[in-house]
């Protein structure tokens, strides 16, 4: 059941006092938990919990013929399924715009950050390259699927290994090498702000999401010059993807300026948490 008018009013009043129904601060995430390797048949996989929100993400690799315009680089695709299992609001059938938009936001953050070193995914120039398929499934929806999906995609990528191939460059399905999927230091982290009344919150529950009139997602990465560096330096921040969505509301330029700074700050701290969880 979507939020009642009276409850929405209360939620907004309460937010103005700086409080949320579950005692969190405006910009506080729910507890994050990541389990890696949920499917031993995937090159990489992860289960992500943000409070009660749950997503599962898998990375599958295959050797394919490259696109003509980029003969030396790998191929990437991100697909999302908002399973009807995850919410009474999701239905079977061809992908709805909600699910396409989610996949596209995650796709851009992965592609533009260059977390996957696509140049290293060439097997034979113009003949065979690796394709990286990232499948994201919503398992239980309690709000903020975008950030949960983005975290899941990054976790699955970071844990992925390369499959075995035979002499004819055919993949031995289900057999893996010890080599990691080549990644860079530019790990993208997506933070999505939701505007409720005059306030912006992070990581909303379904109830809060229902009460919101607008959302803005930022995918931020912190590429480091030193290749092996694990330090996150806000100086290096690069914004790789952005998306305003949801509702009829608009943003002022002051608001967007504040959000950009907040996004960098929050992405850095969220990324630290993600790395802790993965290690």
């Amino acid at each position, binding site marked *: 059941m979507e939020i009642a008018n009276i409850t929405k009013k209360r939620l907004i009043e309460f937010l103005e006092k700086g409080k949320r129904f579950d005692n969190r601060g405006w910009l506080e995430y729910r507890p994050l938990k990541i389990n890696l390797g*949920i*499917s*031993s*048949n*995937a090159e990489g*996989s992860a289960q992500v919990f943000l409070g*009660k929100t*749950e997503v*599962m993400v*898998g*990375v*599958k690799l*295959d050797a394919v013929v490259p696109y003509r315009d980029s003969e030396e680089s790998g191929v990437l695709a991100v*697909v999302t*399924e908002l*399973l*009807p*299992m*995850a*919410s*009474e609001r999701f239905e*079977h059938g061809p992908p709805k715009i909600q699910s396409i938009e989610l996949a596209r936001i995650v796709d851009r953050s992965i592609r533009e950050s260059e977390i996957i070193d696509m140049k290293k995914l060439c097997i034979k120039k113009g003949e065979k390259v690796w394709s990286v*398929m990232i*499948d994201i*499934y919503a*398992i*239980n*929806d*309690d709000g903020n699927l975008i950030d949960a999906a983005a975290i899941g995609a990054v976790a699955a990528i970071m844990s992925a290994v390369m499959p075995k191939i035979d002499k004819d460059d055919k993949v031995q*399905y*289900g057999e893996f090498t010890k080599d990691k999927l080549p990644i860079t230091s530019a790990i993208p982290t997506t933070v999505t702000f939701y505007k409720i009344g005059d306030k912006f919150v992070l990581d909303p529950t379904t109830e809060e999401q229902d009460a919101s009139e607008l959302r803005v997602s930022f995918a931020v990465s912190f590429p480091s010059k030193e290749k092996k560096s694990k330090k996150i330096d806000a100086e290096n921040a690069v914004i790789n993807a952005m998306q305003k969505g949801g509702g009829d509301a608009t943003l002022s330029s002051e608001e967007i300026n504040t959000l950009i700074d907040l996004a960098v700050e929050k992405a850095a701290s969220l990324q630290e948490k993600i790395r802790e969880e993965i290690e």
Partner: protein
Amino acid sequence: MTYEKRYDGRDFDETRKVEIKMGVIPRANGSAMFSFGNTKAIAAVYGPRLMHPQHLQNPEKAVLRCSYDMLSFSVTERKKPGPSRRSSEISHVIMNALTPVLQLENFPNAVIDLEIEIIQADASTRCAGINAAALALAHAGIPMTDLISAVSVGNIGNKICIDITKEEEDYEEDGEKLATDIPVAFAPRKNRLTLLQLDGKVKPEVLKKVIEAGNKACMKINEAQKKALRDLKMETELPEEEEK
């Protein structure tokens, strides 16, 4: 030459390790995870709820809408998302395996949505799915006369094996495939069969033994399912009498 010792060292009438977790999808009215070793299924139930579109309503009873599918990365070669002929058929046989015990006449015009996803596949996925589904339906408070249990029985190199793995499914002798997969499900109280499928070659008299072996295994699985439901008391909330 026959299949003398199982690849994973199990007894021939032994299932893999069974793990059950209830309430894995908080948003659903009922949910459960069921695994046979590396085969892991989750099931969620929504409803009984209003049936859309209206022309699909049945004025005599609720409709059980069942969907079985595999996550794309649950198998070694990526499965394209969305329904296939295989998943449609399995959804249908799972529905038929469960409806005999459901008292659907209590909810005319309504729909009960049953969603099954395989997270990790190592054969016997439909059976793990049915076991998870039976638990999710009970958890959702759907009235039913029995709790269904399912297991796949294999005839591997002329040996009857319970709960076969992918490796056993691919068993060969001298280049000839000698593995037959026979998934069965039972309503255990009266030993009624609710699922029967076969894929391979098997002698009629062996088939009779296979079904008997399947029945025995289902009884054991049923005990594990009942225990999981009873143990739910500690984790979730039960009403208790107010007065002493």
